[in-house]
């Protein structure tokens, strides 16, 4: 038993380094996507203290809109632009209809409101686009689909071109976001709101504009994630579950931290794949990916209640 837990998995890893690299690569790809979704969460949480549960359904909704528009005969890239437009309209209407009347309510009320939005989008998406599984328009968007086979250590390592593209695009998007947040006026406004609401308002930063902006950014992230994940697994409401994965990423990294979201995402992507392949499948009957990330984050939180990179919690009576 102890051998199965502590020795055999590592022996397997050393015995087949090419397989280990394959596992790590796949973990990295999903980790990048988790990090991307978590970034959307963090931006919204920092600027409005809203724990946005609707992020997951926004991924599905964006992907469905894109595929749906294309199926009406609209060229792929114009569909992408139109989908971005839809996400912008969505951001504006969420801010106007839901968030503005709820300013200043307790956190849990705002959280519930985002669950309300989730239900609304699920119902709406099913009515407009239908619930059946759809194929992402990968080729029309010019995303490469072949694979490259490397032979490290005399073994076999298969890199899907799709996955490589995903990693590159996600990294570029993260870099662009960081540049936007650090070097532009609007980006600084977002960070200022995150640091201190009152102070930011008093120097003339518009709460409404920033909120629309962060929800729109979350929408862009949702579209990219939706394309990436949809190309791998098809577009359906099952995609929503990957958003649950972003929650432990946030916990691990800290709700306010952008660095935390990125590092947390990569860590969870890698570790859950490793655990599933080397411990979960042989010892626990598999499918441990549903809970591993949560339990890992829970254990980390027991030692650091604010997550790895979160703001230290200071409480006053």
């Amino acid at each position: 038993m102890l051998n199965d837990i502590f020795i055999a998995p590592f022996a397997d890893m050393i015995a087949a380094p090419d397989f280990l690299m394959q596992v790590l690569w796949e973990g990295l790809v999903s980790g990048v996507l988790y990090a991307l979704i978590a970034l959307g969460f963090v931006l919204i949480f920092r600027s409005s203290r809203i724990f946005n549960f609707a992020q997951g359904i926004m991924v599905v909704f964006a992907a469905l809109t894109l595929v749906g528009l294309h199926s009406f005969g609209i060229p792929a890239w114009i569909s992408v632009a139109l989908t971005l437009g839809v996400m912008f309209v969505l951001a504006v209407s969420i801010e106007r209809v839901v968030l503005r009347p709820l300013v200043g309510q307790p956190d849990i009320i705002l959280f519930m409101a985002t669950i309300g939005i989730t239900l609304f989008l699920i119902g709406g998406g099913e009515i407009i686009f239908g619930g059946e599984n759809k194929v992402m328009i990968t080729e029309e968007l010019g995303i490469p689909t072949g694979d490259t086979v490397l032979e490290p250590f005399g073994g076999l390592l298969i890199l899907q071109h799709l996955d490589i593209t995903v990693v590159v695009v996600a990294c570029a998007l993260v870099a662009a976001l960081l540049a936007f947040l650090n070097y532009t006026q609007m980006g600084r406004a977002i960070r200022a709101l995150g640091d201190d609401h009152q102070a930011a308002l008093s120097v003339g930063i518009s709460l409404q504009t920033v909120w629309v902006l962060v929800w729109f950014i979350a929408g862009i992230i949702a579209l990219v994630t939706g394309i990436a994940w949809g190309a791998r697994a098809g577009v359906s409401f099952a995609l929503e579950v990957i958003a649950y994965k972003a929650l432990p990423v946030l916990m691990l990294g800290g709700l306010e931290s952008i660095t935390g979201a990125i590092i947390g995402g990569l860590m969870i992507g890698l570790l859950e794949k490793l655990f599933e392949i080397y411990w979960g499948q042989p010892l626990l009957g598999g499918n441990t990916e549903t809970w591993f990330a949560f339990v890992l984050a829970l254990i980390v939180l027991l030692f650091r209640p604010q997550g790895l990179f979160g703001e230290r919690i200071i409480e006053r009576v």
Partner: protein
Amino acid sequence: MGDEKDMLYRTAGQFKTSYEADQALFPVRQDAILLAVILACAWVIFPLVASEFVFQTLLIPILIYSLAALGLNILTGFAGQLSLGTAAFMGVGAYACYKMITIMPWMNPIVAILLSGVFSAGIGVAFGIPSLRIKGFYLAIATLAAQFFLVWLFEKWAWLYNYNASGAIQVPNLEMFGVYIAGPQASSIVQYFVVLFIVSLLTLVCINLTRGTLGRTWKATRDMDIAAELIGINLMKSKLTAFAVSSYIVGVAGALFVFMWRGAAEPNLFDIPLSFRILFIAIIGGLGSIMGNYLGAILIVGLPVVLNLVPNALGIPIGSATVEHLNIMIVGSLIVFFLIVEPHGLAQLWRLIREKLIIWPFPH
């Protein structure tokens, strides 16, 4: 000035001359009368008039969902610990009840249902331990760990469902005093009375718990835990008892859910949508209120039933799938609507109405 008949809810003139009278369960006579009317409806009138359809789609589920929401409300509304794992704890109750019934078939089913809560209370305390260090949304995500882990366990641990090929648990016929109270042969009215009995009993217990020392410690913890600690409240005891009591009630609700209503259960029945459903009920009903759970359950359970009937009644031909999706949309928008109009829930609406009634016909 109107005479007494005009003033339905006049509380003036009901003087309390002792502490006992002031601390009574119903210090206001009208509240007691109102409750008596509700109980009479529930125990006598509904069973006489309700059809099979009403029992199965409204009365029984409303009661069970209210009980689950009551359990969650103890934890979230009274003790301030947000939980997103309610459905998993319901599952623990249901599976515990199933195992007890199949290992000890001679066991009285009602006793088994009430005991099954003990198991979920134990698991609840275990997952409540992180609450001593983790707060707010971090804790909410930690309870999601319970949610996903337990549902996975229900699926993988074959002993729990007696190695059935289907992986589901099936409620056997259970007899008490010569009457079937659970399983395919039980009649709805008997099940309704069993559910009503347990729900009434636990509600009474909860009302008294939340009024007493324990309830006050919970509320102090909720309002500000550091301040509560400074005035001498043992936070560990307060939080863990809240987890225990809450999970107990939720577990019993889970056992009722499967044994008195669904008749069978697969692991994914206890998945996250059920947790959210119960959270909706608790929040729309009103956090920190006991009656709110019933109002919330009536709304959330009753609304889809009504919405399903409307297109038929109007003769509009809509596919059942579309109706279902429309339902989801409408429930989603109603949640947002209620949160905007009355963030403190339906219970607060009733409180406002009651205040108006007390001073009626005067505006102030």
